[in-house]
């Protein structure tokens, strides 16, 4: 193995570690919500620094690798690595936001049993892990399978919004809690978007095909524009 290959390998490794940190952050944030655990919430906020540092570090390694003028697969990997790390850093931000909202919710009694939000969390976490697995095995088909699932998450988010809106209409005292829950739902939906972005990057990495913004307009109704 050449030194270059070793460095490329270490870039991939860092990215995978970062991904595991990001998914853990989401999981912990949801735990803070469902188990009403404020300590866990603070933990998530603290851990976000690690993700920020990972992003910086990956960019640094990427620049050093780009100095050697890589081509073809290597070039795509480095380009994609910086984008994925950016998405993962944003996932961390979403997790932090969820954790903060959880803390606010924990100050009041639970409005209703949490069923849909954990379901959404499971969905977006699955999307994230599948996208990362697709990256590891450079499996474009697997990555593609993530993309349609983003719509299911969007649907769930919309459904939750309607439900929570009716709660507000019933009793204005629910407003704060409902708004917080809506915000969490929105954050989870954003995590789904990031997972979808990562999946698209993985397709570019393994097939050199840019599939971003290629959905038909009517399909894309619920999907916010990718960054």
């Amino acid at each position: 193995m050449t030194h270059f290959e070793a460095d490329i390998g270490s870039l991939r490794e860092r990215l995978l570690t970062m991904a595991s940190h990001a998914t853990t952050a989401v999981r912990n944030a949801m735990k803070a919500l469902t188990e009403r655990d404020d300590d866990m919430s603070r933990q998530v906020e603290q851990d976000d620094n690690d993700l920020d540092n990972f992003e910086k570090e990956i960019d640094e390694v990427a620049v050093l690798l780009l100095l050697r003028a890589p081509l073809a697969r290597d070039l795509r990997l480095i380009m994609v690595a910086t984008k994925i790390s950016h998405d993962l850093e944003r996932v961390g931000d979403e997790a932090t936001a969820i954790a903060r909202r959880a803390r606010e919710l924990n100050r009041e009694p639970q409005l209703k049993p949490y069923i849909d939000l954990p379901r959404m969390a499971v969905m977006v976490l699955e999307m994230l892990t599948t996208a990362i697995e697709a990256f590891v095995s450079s499996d474009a088909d697997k990555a593609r399978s993530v993309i349609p699932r983003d719509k299911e998450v969007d649907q769930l988010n919309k459904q939750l919004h309607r439900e929570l809106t009716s709660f507000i209409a019933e009793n204005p005292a629910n407003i704060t809690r409902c708004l917080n829950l809506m915000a969490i739902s929105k954050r989870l939906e954003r995590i789904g978007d990031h997972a979808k972005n990562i999946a698209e990057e993985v397709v570019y990495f393994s097939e050199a095909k840019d599939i971003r913004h290629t959905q038909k307009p009517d399909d894309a109704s619920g999907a916010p524009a990718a960054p």
Partner: protein
Amino acid sequence: MAEILPSRLTVESPPSAGDRESGTTVPLIETEKLSLFYGRAQALKEISLGIRERVVTAFIGPSGCGKSTFLRCFNRMNDLIDNVRVSGHCRIGGEDILGSDVDVIELRKRVGMVFQRSNPFPKSIFENIAYGLRLHGARDRKAMAETVERSLRGAALWDEVKDRLDESALGLSGGQQQRLCIARAIAIRPEILLMDEPASALDPIATMKIEELILDLKKEFTIVIVTHNMQQATRISDYTAFFYLGELIEYDSTHRIFTNPQKKQTEDYVTGRFG
């Protein structure tokens, strides 16, 4: 996005022999099952490809892969080597150039060449360019002076040498010498310019000047360049052909060859993982 990218980035698949029928992109140079033997050793194996007019086409591949030999088929420079045998077809503008009835002098007038090591004649700068003009019948000193100036300007060398045209070309720097060789080649108005690693012996600044020049020259000339420097190929060429062991492995737009080659050998070569 389209307007900020140079047009060459948006060019897609290269012309092939089949394109001739479609009429849209008639290749200027076209080979069909071109094989070349040194004695018994086969140096080129049935190479078929088409090179489009007024674009830069780069030949890459490890040493000894036949890219230079292939380039030298286009102006029959391989004729100079004993025991060389060629089979198949090589057409320029539709006309086969491999036959023994081909006027090689006329061919080389239409297909100029620049070599790896700059090789100016040990004559004055003016005489270096006038040499080719005289070979092809120029006698009028005034017209010749105009052509010399035009060629030197074309090779981005005029401003550096206009006050010392009568000085020896050997007093120029390596990069200037190479640009003089380019000026000498374009002075006789060829259609095609073959370049065999023209910048491999130059420092980065001289290399950059040559590369800028090549991008300017492609407006008027069809350029085929052999290079070992893959970054150079990405910077200047529209199409890239990868050769290995005398075979054409892959031929595609430069963009594709260097971001997403289709053949494993190409991928291994451009990423530096060649066994």
